């Protein structure tokens, strides 16, 4: 199956998650009207700088052993933890998302300049939004899968978790053709622009 690209993902802004990521505790943190207004302005700025794109591809699993997952395309992911995670699955969903270059440049400019407060808010918004984009992609695929009595695993797995080496970013990124979305992997296996993510979720039958 070909990779499916989502050129403009529209999300409800995950405000609770953004505030939580920044350390806000609903019953404890005291925020004046002016401080709140400032944070809201930074969040609005972040949203206007984010260009949220995604991509996903279903790939059949050829075999899962105790230490590796082999895909029908011939790709092999060596990781005990990933193999354990995909034990029940006959297919996987490879997915990627990016918040785009503009937001990353704004984070860097503010962080290096004199507005780190703005930078941390932009950073939190981008991180949460890009994570939510993967939730969105999973919900999108689940909708079709459900009609065929299949579904995605609730959780997803990313390169860099446990023994699933970061080096795998290169393979995932290439398989998904993330370059089309402006995302590349650098020599240290980090996705560029920075606020980009990849992940794997398993696909299996819905139990009777």
């Amino acid at each position, binding site marked *: *199956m070909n990779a*499916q690209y*989502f*050129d*403009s993902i*529209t*999300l*409800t802004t995950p405000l609770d998650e953004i*505030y939580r990521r*920044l*350390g*806000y*505790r609903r019953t*404890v*943190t*005291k*925020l*004046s*009207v*002016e*401080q709140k207004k*400032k*944070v809201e302005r*930074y969040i*609005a700025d972040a949203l*206007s700088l984010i260009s949220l794109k995604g991509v996903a591809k279903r790939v059949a699993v050829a075999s899962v052993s105790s230490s590796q997952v082999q895909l029908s395309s011939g790709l092999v992911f060596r990781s005990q933890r990933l193999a354990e995670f995909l034990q*029940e699955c006959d297919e996987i969903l490879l997915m990627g998302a990016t918040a785009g270059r503009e937001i990353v440049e704004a*984070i860097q400019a503010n*962080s*290096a300049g*004199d*507005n*780190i*407060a703005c*930078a*941390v*808010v932009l*950073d939190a918004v981008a991180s949460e939004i890009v994570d939510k984009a993967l939730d*969105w992609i999973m*919900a*999108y695929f689940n*909708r079709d899968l*459900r*009609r*065929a*009595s*299949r*579904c995605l695993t*609730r959780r997803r797995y990313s390169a*860099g978790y446990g023994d699933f080496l*970061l080096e795998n970013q290169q393979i995932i990124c290439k398989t998904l053709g993330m370059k089309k979305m402006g995302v590349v992997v650098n020599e*240290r*296996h*980090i996705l560029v622009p*920075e606020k980009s993510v990849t992940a794997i979720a398993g696909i*299996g*039958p*819905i*139990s*009777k």
Partner: protein
Amino acid sequence: MQNFRQVLKKRIMILDGATGTELQKRGMPQGVCPEQWCADNPSVIQNVHQDYLNAGAEVIYSCTFGANREKLAQHKIKDVFLINKQLAELARRTAGQKAWVAGDIGPTGKFIEPFGPLPFEEAVEIFKEQIKGLLAGGVDLFVIETMIDIQEARAALIAVKELTDKFTIVTMTFEPDGRTLNGTDPVSALITLQSLGADAVGCNCSTGPAQMVGLIEKMKPYACVPLVAKPNAGLPKLIKGQTTFDMQEKEFASSGFRLVTQGVNLIGGCCGTTPAHIRALAKRVAHRRPAVPLRKALGALSSARKSILIDEDAPLRIVGECINPTGKKALQEELRAEKMSLLRQLAKDQEQNGADLLDVNVGVPGLDEARTLKNVCNLLAVCTDLPLVLDSADGEAVAQALRVYPGRALVNSISGEPHKLKKMLPLVKKYGAMFILLPLSGKKITVDFESRRKIIERIFRQARKAGFRKDDIIVDSMVMTVSSFPQAAAEAIKTIRWCRDVFQIRTICGLSNISFGLPQRPWLNGAYLVMARAQGLTMAIANPLNETVMNMKRSVDVLLQKDPAAAAFIASFSKSPRAQKRDVSQTLSIEQKISAAIIDGNREDITGLAREAVDSKIDLGNLVNAIMVPAINEVGERFDKKEYFLPQLIASAETMKMAFDYLEPHLREGQTSAAQKTVVILATVEGDIHDIGKNIVGLMLRNHGFSVVDLGSDVSAEKIVEEIRRHRAPLVGLSALMTTTMVNMKDVIELSRKQGLNCRFVVGGAVVNEDYARSIGADYAHDGVKAVAVMKKLRAQ
């Protein structure tokens, strides 16, 4: 067969249940094309249809959910017409004349412009191809279902309506947060789809029936058409690593009953439901009398993500007027160059300042208005939630924009010339838009109320014949400038009053026209707004960035009881930072003001306050040590207690730094501990580019008298050690955000020890913890506040 529409008025209509899962139970293998498999195994799908009919379904869906060009191409099937015709015929043969067959249309799997790459007209053509096959197969009605993209639902609905007048149901799929994956809420979806000509609207899939009750509750008050619900058999649950639908038939039927009592007129089942679920449902609800739609028409506008009611009881609706190139050179140039950044900014500014709708006028001499208006609508549909008012006299431009706009727009405007009425009324009706009725006919301007009244009545009679109701129309009260027409205000007010009291239709005005050619225009605009509103004005085209006008609007809403408990008024003014600042500045000493500014993170005022402190010749050493340092310490304590969160901590730290930067040249030797600064080297280790955390630590350390040498990110061990040696730094802070790079911290420490350096290391970062720090011979700091505490402790040793 009975007339479908007539039957719907008399009883609850039972729809069928899930098809895919039934086919699998009956042998359809995984991964095949369900449509092709059914065509190859006709008895299986006919049995599924028959089982649903036996269970009590009165409408069965043809098995054509994925039978569009895009989906079939994934299985290398090219004859879209044939497969749709075959599958519709199978359903038709099974249903005979005892039940209705709905031609089922599902999503293409692609997003449509402006939300995706598939051109709108191509989407319409894809659906038309499918619809032609279904019509040839003999379907009675159409169902457009499981839509997450309102634009795709619109494309499919337009395709149906351009080919047939058969009854058409549209159901969207909503997520647990109450919106579709693309962000459309149920009321906006309803407003857009029913005005575009859907005969019934509702929801299917995604949630169980209990969750769907909330969606139907939201839709019902605004529904002019019957409502539909086709829920899953409960919410999917994870049991022993497997997802399952666990709602049994009886429970499903009870929840279905609740949906019917909330106003659903057509009900069936989606994923996980079986003929047994439909049998139980039919038994439970079939005897109920249906709740008829509450309205025949609705004054409301929508975008893809928001709807606005145009109602006498609602607050005055402000249509932002700023997207208009008349007299705006920059906007004219941008439109000519097909750039959109200024437009985006104008939309954002108006939305943030309280506009309810955005007027869009792109009339620039020499510009292709149709093309430009369409492009601008596509842009605004993505970058603002506000519904649009299409402001153009060019019929072709309005037609193109209405076709692609993913909501219900307001057309500004239609005047009384017969040729215009003939062209514009059917066009606006086709796309379900509302329109502004302009009481003008020909070139002569009608100033007096009586002339206007006659034109309004005449245009309305024509509009009524075209299918419009008063709820679909807003009358322009035709405000003209009082500098040329002294009686203009009075005549417009008469028009507004007559529209409210006699003709019972809503009104709008172009507010700033009243003051054209006069000085101090906001006062005249504001005064007129209050007068007109008191006489019944429903909407005003105005500049939302004008504080006077917006405050008048908020005030008059309170006084006319259109703002319950003055909630919007209070919220608007409690947000005003200026009012608060004035209060504070009048009562505090300069020391208190500086302390408060640091604690509040007031970067905007701190340099001015520091200047005031220097000018007032107070003891600056005392200011730093007795006022500013305790203030920033208090911020740290609040952060520790979680009373402050990260942006507050940093804003305070930055405020402190700005104050200090200003004061430092004025401080005498020994007035602050800054004179004995301890050098700290900071770096994000090799391989890691994340540096916000490190920058925060640097900021905090500087505020506490450390001399920070920040080496940046992705710094090699050799470079860090070289800098430690060069600066003779006793303290080093290392940061890493990834498990793959945190190991490089150890290399830095080992290299420094090898070279005989005895500096102390403090490490931090998302993946680093106390144990890891200890294992490599370093101290650990969880955040900026802790980093300061640890560094201070180490400095004291």
